[in-house]
């Protein structure tokens, strides 16, 4: 338990530090990218559905898998589109 808490605390720090100097123009892409990352709930959805024994759990799980997939896939694609402006221009 304390290990998970430690992980949590460290991850908070990493999250803070890593984005603390982002420039304004990247606010929206960064938000969108982070949004795609929390789509990792897909992993959770797959795990519970993979263990579901049918019934409500299965239905809910599958719904979760669907929704999470939309989150992941849409998130990364839309972020990439937004970032096209930074594509390979000089320097």
């Amino acid at each position, binding site marked *: 338990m304390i290990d998970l808490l430690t992980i*949590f605390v460290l991850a*908070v720090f990493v999250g803070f530090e890593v984005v603390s100097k982002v420039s304004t123009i990247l606010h929206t892409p960064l*938000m969108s990218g982070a949004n795609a990352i929390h789509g990792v*709930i897909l992993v*959770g959805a797959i*795990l519970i559905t993979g263990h579901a024994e049918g019934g409500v759990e299965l239905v809910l799980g599958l719904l979760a898998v669907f929704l999470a997939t939309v989150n992941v896939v849409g998130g990364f694609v839309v*972020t*990439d589109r937004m970032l096209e402006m930074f594509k390979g221009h000089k320097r």
Partner: protein
Amino acid sequence: MNWASLAYLVAALCFILALKGLSTPRYARVGNLVGAGGMVLAVVTAYAHGVVHNGLLILVMVVLGTVVGIPAAKAVKMTAVPQMVALFNGVGGAAAALVALTEFLAADGDLLFDLATVLTVLIGAVSFSGSVVTFLKLQEIMTTRPVLLPAGQSLGIGVAVASVVLSAAVLTTSSTALLVLLALAGLALGVLFVLPVGGADVPIAISLLNAFTGLAVAASGYVLGNTLLIVAGTLVGASGTILTRLMAQAMGRPLTNILFGAFSPRPEVAHTEEQRTVRSGTVEDVAILLGYAHSVLVVPGYGLAVAQAQHAARELALLLEARGIDVSYGIHPVAGRMPGHMNVLLAEADVPYDRLKELDDVNPGIGSVDVVLVVGANDVVNPGARDDPSSPIHGMPIFDVDRAKAVVFMKRSMRPGFAGVDNSLLYNPKTTLLFGDAKDSLTKLLAAVKQV
């Protein structure tokens, strides 16, 4: 320790690197790809290692989700991206709530497990409904103005208290029905939270809801005992929080107003500004605009002289030139307050004469100029002089900067120039206003461009 845990760890690493990349223009795109790579790794691992039943069904849902997600993301117009992000965020929150709910049905756990479940369900629900409302607002399916329900404040406080009570009840009883009720309360809370948020603040609300979803995912990680979910969720929660604060700062909005709109007794009256809206940017916005431009035209005016900003303008131009950007100066015959006013100043700052361009040199090719930097000029770039026969300055030749790709307007206020006439360029969607003394703004810009 097994290979799956290791794969999850690698995925977590990818996510960290993704966020890091996304914070700098140069690596933003790569960062996003690294994040996607991490995600693929994580999902494949989960599927290969964690799936006992329903493998095919899961695959079908994943394919379905992909089939829905990709075209949606590809079709959306760039201007509609924020609402798309809101929607994706909402479904993520819903997924987290569902996962926790399902696990709650399937497994029994200790108090901490229940606490994590409660948090996941509540926050996920808030995030889902809140995101849906922001989507409706931005898509203009409902009004973009703040919606102030009668008794909105009491309602908000009421639902919040109900959620706390329900949470406590779930923790003590472990009742699924109560958990479902809590989810409903969360949905209501999300709606109430976002309704009073008006136009410009909506993106900030989305960012906050994004951070919420991250926290919900982290909590679900505790529920499932999955370190990857904890790390990734926490990362998003933390970075999303910081980002929300940065966004609010950049827009000059106090975060508390947005956060507690639903609970504040007398919500801010909607700003009754003029109908026409202006877009004011930050120094960083302009810096990136400049940093990625190929050609920049500086149009100095009387304000440059008042601010004695000639040296600062020259320094900025030098910096841009050093990066291979083509910089020239558009010198209008009547810029300033005496003939040759700009010449005197720019000569003092040692601007080479061959950089000085006149109306006839500039206007024909102005369409291909990436950014026009209007430094304390006003009348000499007023499209009214060209287009509006009733304007007192009609007939004066101007720099047609409204035909360039983007305009940055540096002045201190919305006050007009010498001729006292309003300037429609200020309200042009191409225009970014940078308020403040020209020298100040240029000096800050100089520092900001160096960071780009």
